[in-house]
């Protein structure tokens, strides 16, 4: 044996970076057992009639039939769709506009940035409670405006079934846009000064530079932000609990709350599992094609 000279005997692909691979075994196991295993377990038990305790008595699609016949679930899905679309659009737009304004080399940028980011440091429960008070007609915005003289002013989204989801949206945006702004700002700072100079020399107006040049260049940042916002939307739960606990009536229910309530309050695990499986399916329908385009199908972008 003259020893393994580099290139002569190609080492087994599986043995490359062996140390790193061994080191990652615990994490791989955790991921497989906890995430994949837990998910599979949930899906299997969603076809049973488990009540308080899980048991393997299969009932086919009964739980799903009941789920899709339940008015509360349908309301939850609608709410999630409205809340999801609007919060996605608004937090991206507001976050980007704030970041662009912040990027104009203004004074006290640090202070502003801190103020904008502060809400993000609060938990959803605290955010929810703060906005519950602000939107309460007896103590909050409505009463302040009325005390200033506009006595017919009415602003009570949390007590109006038709618009309650927007009340929750306001709180979510207040909490979340600061983070989006920071991510965007980081992206903007990553753009080369020379590009701005070149655009200026060519006489391209500033808004056009942003839309046509800067935003396409920030693709990576946008995708990161999108994933963060989207995952926040699907799991929205505590904000609703703190602000309205699903009310008035069932007008502001969301899927995650349905899952929790039916698993634990109604002691009907099967129903809760069916609902959470539906949530997983929804997410998968959105994520899988996107991930395929983004990561699969060859590397189109450099």
């Amino acid at each position, binding site marked *: 044996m003259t020893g393994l000279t580099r290139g002569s005997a190609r080492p087994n692909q599986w043995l490359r970076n062996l140390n790193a691979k061994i080191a990652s075994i615990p994490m791989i196991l955790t991921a497989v057992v906890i995430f994949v295993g837990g998910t599979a377990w949930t899906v299997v038990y969603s076809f049973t009639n488990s*009540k*308080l*305790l899980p048991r393997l008595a299969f009932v086919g699609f009964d739980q799903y039939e*009941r789920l899709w016949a*339940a*008015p*509360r679930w349908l309301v939850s899905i609608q709410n999630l769709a409205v809340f999801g679309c609007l919060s996605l659009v608004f937090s991206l737009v507001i976050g980007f506009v704030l970041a662009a304004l912040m990027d104009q080399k203004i004074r006290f940028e640090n202070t502003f940035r801190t103020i904008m980011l502060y809400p993000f440091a609060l938990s959803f429960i605290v955010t929810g409670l703060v906005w519950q008070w602000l939107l*309460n*007609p*007896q103590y909050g915005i409505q009463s302040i405006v009325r005390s200033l003289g506009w006595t017919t002013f009415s602003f009570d989204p949390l*007590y109006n*079934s038709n618009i309650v989801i927007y009340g929750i949206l306001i709180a979510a945006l207040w909490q979340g846009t600061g983070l989006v702004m920071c991510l965007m700002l980081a992206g903007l700072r990553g753009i080369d000064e020379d590009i701005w100079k070149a655009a200026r020399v060519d006489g391209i107006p500033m808004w056009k530079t942003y839309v046509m040049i800067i935003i396409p260049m920030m693709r990576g940042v946008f995708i990161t932000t999108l994933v963060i916002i989207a995952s926040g939307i699907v799991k929205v739960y505590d904000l609703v609990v703190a602000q*309205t*606990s*699903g*009310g*008035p*009536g*069932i*007008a502001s229910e969301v899927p995650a709350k349905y899952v929790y*309530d*039916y698993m*634990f*309050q*109604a*002691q*009907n695990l099967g*129903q809760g599992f069916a609902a959470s499986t539906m949530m997983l399916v929804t997410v998968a329908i959105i994520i899988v094609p996107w991930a395929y385009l983004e990561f699969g199908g060859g590397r189109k972008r450099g």
Partner: protein
Amino acid sequence: MKLRFLAAALGATAALPFGAASATDLEVTHWWTSGGEAAAVAELAKAFDATGNKWVDGAIAGSGGTARPIMISRITGGDPMAATQFNHGRQAEELVQAGLMRDLTDIATKENWKEVVKPSSLLDSCTIEGKIYCAPVNIHSWQWLWLSNAAFKQAGVEVPKNWDEFVAAAPALEKAGIVPLAVGGQPWQAAGAFDVLMVAIAGKENFEKVFAQKDEEVAAGPEIAKVFKAADDARRMSKGTNVQDWNQATNMVITGKAGGQIMGDWAQGEFQLAGQKAGVDYTCLPGLGVNEVISTGGDAFYFPLLEDEEKSKAQEVLASTLLKPETQVAFNLKKGSLPVRGDVDLAAANDCMKKGLDILAKGNVIQGTDQLLSADSQKQKEDLFSEFFANHSMTPEDAQKRFADIIAAAD
């Protein structure tokens, strides 16, 4: 996560020597956190401490809906408390079937619970396959209408004597800027109010047909349609309540901001704490003044199976303490509920409690819906009625149809 676990483990080892030195500590979890409730549970703690043991209070705020999942996950997760409150009936049924709860039959026979607990349906609800698994502590009945005398005075109308008079008085109350009927936003409140209307308007027989025999034809029939008509009135009268918790709604009645509230007799503890007197400051109408029937649901303590022998012994002491006549009187006076023993003297009881005791003595009782329906059906009912009370465009007919479906699917 790991750090927290470590801290918990350290904490546990540090606490151990103290526990061994003094009498046995028992952690008792419950969801009695409003003013009147906390005062009542302090009586239980006092009585148990007097036996030389120590009551470690594990109050969980946020009413039963929040507390029960926490309790259940602790029991099923292998970290049981020594005793825990449930509404007796079907809430703990599966825990018992899974063998996680302790059989109390021995103590019950020794202390003759079968003789002293009245009405006997209370103990029946604790009994699963011939064994007794819980110690009932009080009887709570839902079927009460609490009225604020001050509110009616302000509106210039007589304090109503029954539901129909109350509905008739509603416009006058509204004119005076008073919400006629306070219904808090928590879902169980709307569902509970409906059950009360059901027994008051459709009567005991129909109530039992629907909830005990799950007869969907009756549930869809004309008698129950009347109940939905009344619920429609209640919905109109509750407009503008804008509070969540039941005790906030009760507080509206106490302060005269609302005319009345349909709530169980636990509301009475709040009136007492506010220094109000039955008959003078507030009026109570059992069975809404129409049908004087009360349900005999209530609270009970369940004892998870523990390995620690000393703790198991202390559990027995606690179980027998809870049913002692003195404890029963002290606790129930503060709580505003009725004692589970027929042989205790409640001379100190106020007007409303006496009305309740009278009805109990006459035997005009029904089982509560917690005892008759599974938690699952109860939750579906809550969803339906919280939607119905909030959404004025939902017709009583639609609601009744959905109600009949829930009853048909109930087990």
